[in-house]
């Protein structure tokens, strides 16, 4: 019988995968995608809890998270485009101007 525990475990696994992705990839866009994975894992957890305890607030939260994710993706990609225009690359190792 699959219960909330399974969903939460899945959420944890997906989140971890997302974290590893953020920490290891060098392409800025792919790092972004890993962040989206993390957000989705969070959404999954939220929905699970909302349905388990019967509070619709959880579902509202998910909606809001999705909206924010969309906004963040738009702005983030705009930044990446601007970055690309400066350095001709999206390798985040090339953007170490804050070094020192």
């Amino acid at each position, binding site marked *: 019988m699959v219960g909330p525990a399974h969903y939460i475990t*899945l959420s944890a696994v997906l989140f*971890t995968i997302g974290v590893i992705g953020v920490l290891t990839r060098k392409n800025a866009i792919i790092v972004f995608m890993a962040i989206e994975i993390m957000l989705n894992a969070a959404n999954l957890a939220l929905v699970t809890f909302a349905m388990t305890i019967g509070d619709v607030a959880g579902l*509202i939260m998910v909606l809001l998270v*999705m909206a924010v994710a969309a906004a963040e993706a738009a702005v983030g990609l*705009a930044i990446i485009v601007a970055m*690309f225009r400066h350095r001709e690359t999206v390798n985040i190792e090339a953007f170490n101007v804050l070094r020192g």
Partner: protein
Amino acid sequence: MTGVDVAFWILAAIAVGASLVVITSRNPVACVLFLVVTFFALAGLFVTLHSHFLAAVQVIIYAGAIMVLFLFVIMLLNLGQEQWFDVSNNPLRVTAVVFGAGFLALLVGGGISGLAPTVRGPAAEISPDLLGSTGAVGTALYTAYFMPFITIALLLLLAMVGAVALARRER
């Protein structure tokens, strides 16, 4: 083992597998496409949880809008191949993986096993199908959670303006 359980396991496997590919693939376009697969799997999982509305929204927004945006940008920037995920070469990556494993162990072993909700929300007795339906979500959104709704609208406006401003060509 009911049908829902089977569906869960299959969808879970797809989700995990696809996201693994996302973080290991060399080809950015492949990454995007597999991410779309992940999103669909997740939408399916939402359905198994009886939140139909959100499943639909997930597909529309994530797979439909955000991923398209990603794809556009990748095509626009005309990115090439990059170095493959090579664990033995980079201590940072080793650390990350090890950490990740530890993190997972922590989450799973530490907290999830004894997960039984101690709180019951206001709609606990309502059937989940009703709870996750568009009507229920919509009603809550426009009455009790109306302020966050307006705020999100503003946020989206801001994001739009910001994105346009950032990506403009310098004259």
